[in-house]
């Protein structure tokens, strides 16, 4: 039996007191995708995947995960998913192998199945040599990889990764990304990850949902999201930019123009071809062009476009602190 959709959520909502952490989210994720939830801290990403993984009950809405309803059959969901939490969740006093063995036993795997899976998942994350070392002697990246291996032990259909590279250095982050790709291919597992790293979503994910204040504000392939911004940005350093702002705005080539830090930013559909023409226009009006640069829209630009702000930690820190307080109250 095949489920076409790994996730089907409709109107999923979570409230902590007065605060709506996740607000009427509709989501369909297909089998085999690497799907990213991109948003600042406190946007509701973790709350969303906690609802999908039956850790938190939803306030409203329905969700089917791997074909099972999160409310009616939470154990069915739990058997079909693996999850790597944002915070570490390993037993440091056991070895890597013992952590995996514990997991296998808890999920009801027989001894021979456990041995086979432990070998396999250790291979996938490249921890074969360190399997019998106590986890307290692992580096941060190794712990992360072990947690991913553990999440795969019981052959889940879906693996949730909550901020898989949070707090890791750039090289380690790369290594983790490559492992995520490999396990998606080798294990044919659907991967749903949350991140507030633009590059991570861009590099890894087949589709990305931008989530802000508990709502999905955009959802598409990373390239399609960038294309929605309609083209490239040509930045021109020129004397007296105010004068040329008006001139360029009249040009058919230019879809939008603004001055940022004394530099003209012009939105055009295909940058390479537009540059000579734009310089031509400036020269004809006696303009002295100092430098020209071309930039393609990044996912960051897309994010700014949809949320009206950059994805910075401090932008959300206030809100996430509020949410933490609200969470604490909600749990009492």
């Amino acid at each position, binding site marked *: 039996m095949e489920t076409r959709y790994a996730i089907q959520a409709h109107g999923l909502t979570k409230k902590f007191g007065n605060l709506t952490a996740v607000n009427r989210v509709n989501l369909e994720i297909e089998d085999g995708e690497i799907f990213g939830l991109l948003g600042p801290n406190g946007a509701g990403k973790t709350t969303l995947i906690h609802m999908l993984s039956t*850790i938190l009950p939803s306030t409203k809405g329905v969700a089917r995960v791997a074909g099972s309803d999160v409310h009616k059959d939470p154990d069915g969901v*739990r058997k079909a998913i693996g999850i790597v*939490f944002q915070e570490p969740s*390993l*037993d*440091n*006093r*056991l070895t890597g192998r*013992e952590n995996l063995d514990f997991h296998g036993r808890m*999920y009801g795997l027989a001894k021979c199945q456990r041995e086979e899976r432990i070998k396999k998942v250790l291979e996938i994350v490249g921890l074969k040599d360190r399997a019998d070392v106590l986890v307290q002697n692992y580096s941060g990246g190794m712990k992360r990889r072990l947690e991913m291996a553990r999440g795969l032990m019981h052959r889940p259909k879906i693996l949730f990764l909550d901020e898989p590279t949070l707090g890791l250095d750039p090289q380690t982050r790369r290594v983790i990304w490559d492992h995520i790709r490999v396990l998606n291919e080798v294990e044919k597992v659907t991967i749903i990850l949350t991140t507030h790293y633009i590059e991570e979503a861009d590099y890894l994910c087949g589709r990305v949902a931008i989530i802000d204040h508990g709502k999905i504000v955009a959802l598409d392939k990373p390239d399609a999201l960038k294309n929605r911004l309609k083209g490239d940005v040509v930045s021109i350093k020129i004397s007296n930019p105010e004068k040329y702002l008006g001139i360029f705005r009249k040009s058919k080539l230019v879809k939008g123009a603004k001055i940022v830090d004394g530099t003209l930013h012009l939105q055009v559909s295909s940058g390479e071809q537009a540059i000579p023409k734009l310089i031509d226009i400036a020269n004809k009006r006696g303009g002295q062009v100092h430098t020209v640069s071309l930039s393609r829209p990044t996912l960051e630009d897309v994010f700014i476009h949809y949320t009206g702000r950059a994805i910075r930690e401090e932008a959300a820190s206030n809100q996430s602190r509020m949410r933490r307080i609200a969470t604490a109250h909600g749990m009492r």
Partner: protein
Amino acid sequence: MAAGQVIYTLWLREMKWLIRAKSRLVASVVQPFLWLAIIGVGMSSTVQIPGSSISYLQFMAPGIVGMTLIFSSTMAGVSVLWDKQFGFMKEILVAPVSRTQIMLGKAIGGMTTSILQGLLLLVAAAAVGVRPPSVLALLQVLVFMVLISLTFVSIGLAFASRMEDPVAFPIVMNFLIMPLYFLSGALYQVQLAPGWLSFLAHLDPLMYGVDGIRGAILGSSYAQYPIWLDFAVIGVFSVAMILLGGYLFKKIKA
């Protein structure tokens, strides 16, 4: 079958820690041993048990076994708090297993540790001359040890399911354990105590446990109640406490 595997898995994890921290097991019986070897022996030369030939040390030894059990059993709950602290509780709670199984796994793990400590104390007591007179008596002692342990492991887990801070846990639990230990008659004869004290002691499950062990080791004439009555009362307590612990554990948060 599956439930058995879950309980065994959790138990196995606690045993791995125990084996890796043998010093903890040994250190935990040093204090009760000092009670026996110093307080017990010292008091024996000052205090006499009225109307009997046994020494104070003999009278007190079953009480110290009880003390070891109540402290180690209740403190077993702290493993739940460390699991919460290190995030491992999330790994346990997201598995497709029931909370009751998790609670039972933790309870049996805690009981094993605490009964091992109780057994070490029993050996220490034997070394200073207090030992069960027969195999049957030894078995009776073991039954009471299991029931005391079950009662207080459950109480510890009930508290642990509601608390967060592993450092605060022993401090809070001491508020509960110290009075229960003092009231249990481990160190004095409840039947000779003033009425109000005797009344309070009768509300204390440990009193029946200590009385049962004392009856088994020293003979029924040194116990306050017949052994079946002690057994029945602490049996009811232990069942009630594991039900309470299981109920509270259902609402546990990682």
